[in-house]
């Protein structure tokens, strides 16, 4: 299936965000839900199971100056195998203008056995824009080995490269489950926080997650592996204070042990 969806948000003269455009097609449907803070919350509603190999889905998000948008999905996406040799693709292109805010906080992507899925994200953030961008990947449904999934993220900040990251798991990704990449952890993900109002935070590390200030900031990448989706989510809450509330402190010694 091919589907394209598009979301354009603008701020009106009262500073409230309005959607100048909101359209989608099955299986990529967009639904606005009420938000109390003057911003806009949109859910991506999967119109069918999937993505299935062979699907080609595109979502465009434009957040104009002063607008605030949160995007969620109603449920995890499960990448499933389709006809032999076919690949499913999901491309998200987003642009975030000055004083604009985009939170991209979807549910997990689950790599089912035999799937072949590529998720691409290309995000342009203008100087002074705010972005929270989360990717979470679950490697296989319960007790199964995942198919091939590649998550590619390109983020530019003020026209300069900020983050380029490709995470590949599955039979065609050598060593992905090994001690250099995930060490057998079935869940992994990252949260990028670009926030000009937040003071830069120093790097910090716990046994399986880390806070990484990026070179092209002000921006921080939280990166994690975890034994399950729930634990992963705790590591990747957009409000970094949440992580501190977990009661874990950055390690300072050699207690660097695997979760399991």
């Amino acid at each position, binding site marked *: 299936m091919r589907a394209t969806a598009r979301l354009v948000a603008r701020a009106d003269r009262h500073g409230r965000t309005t959607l100048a455009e909101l359209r989608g097609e099955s299986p990529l449907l967009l639904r606005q839900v009420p938000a109390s803070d003057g911003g806009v919350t949109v859910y991506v509603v999967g119109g069918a199971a999937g993505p299935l190999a062979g699907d080609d889905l595109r979502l465009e998000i434009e957040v104009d100056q002063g607008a605030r948008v949160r995007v969620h999905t109603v449920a995890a996406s499960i990448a499933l195998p389709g006809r032999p040799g076919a690949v499913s693709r999901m491309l998200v292109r987003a642009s975030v203008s000055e004083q604009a805010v985009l939170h991209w906080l979807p549910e997990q992507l689950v790599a089912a056995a035999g799937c072949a899925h590529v998720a691409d994200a290309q995000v342009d953030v203008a100087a002074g824009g705010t972005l929270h961008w989360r990717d979470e990947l679950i490697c296989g449904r319960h007790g199964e080995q995942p198919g091939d999934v590649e998550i590619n993220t390109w983020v530019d900040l003020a026209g300069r*490269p900020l983050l380029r990251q490709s995470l590949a798991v599955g039979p065609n990704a050598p*060593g992905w489950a*090994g*001690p*250099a*990449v995930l060490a057998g952890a079935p869940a*992994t993900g990252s949260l990028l926080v670009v926030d000009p109002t937040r003071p830069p935070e120093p790097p910090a590390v716990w046994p399986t997650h880390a806070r990484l200030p990026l*070179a092209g900031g002000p921006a921080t990448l939280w990166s994690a592996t975890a034994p399950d989706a729930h634990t992963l989510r705790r590591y990747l809450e957009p409000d970094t204070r949440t992580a501190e509330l977990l009661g874990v402190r*950055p390690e300072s010694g*050699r207690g660097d042990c695997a979760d399991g």
Partner: protein
Amino acid sequence: MATPTMLLLLADGRFPAGAHAHSAGLEAAVAAGRVRDLATLGEYLRGRLATAGLVAAAFAAASCRAASGSPGPSAVDGHRPAELTHLGVARRAALARLDAELDARTASPAQRTVSRRQGRALRRAGREIWPQATFDDLPATSDGPHQPLVLGLVGVAAGLEPGQVATVAAYATVTGSASAAVRLLGLDPYQVQALLVRLAGDCDAVAARAARAAEQPPERLPAAAAPLADIHAEAHVTWEVRLFAS
């Protein structure tokens, strides 16, 4: 076309660019109990090769491409000064872009520091060995240039082609950690060498893929990430006592 000997000299672990002091995350992986024996070392090396190895090899090859095909000081004759200036500006801009692109692929500050330290060490060796090489085209950064970019320029100085430079980078990815594993875990050196022999085909394939990728625009160069590489590097740098610089 470089002689095979030049390729071997650059790939040699004894080339004085500080490789002996780096385990490329292996020391932290060993401390975490994730690498314990030959089997886990093999998986570690496969993962490194597919991630950090591919990225380093692609950037080394891209740096080599950016810097070659343009005149070095020895080729000044036959070029008008304006043309030379233009080429120099373009070369510096290309290398600066590669530097920023590689920063964007290195989320961990500890890993960025390590790459730049190793770049500095390689540049020191390169300047001593090839005084005519154009290392000053690299962007001026306080903590040094990224190692793969310097490797590309060293490759140009040595007369290597991008594919050969990629081979050196991919090869160093596996041999550096393997050598550290022999020292850290007391593994049988013959068995470790046999493992490297088994990985030789993968190493060549990664180098070939990197060399092809290096023809892409800089933003399209490989960005293969490994969450544990970042976590290992950040943990390692906090240790009070460590044997390796990375």
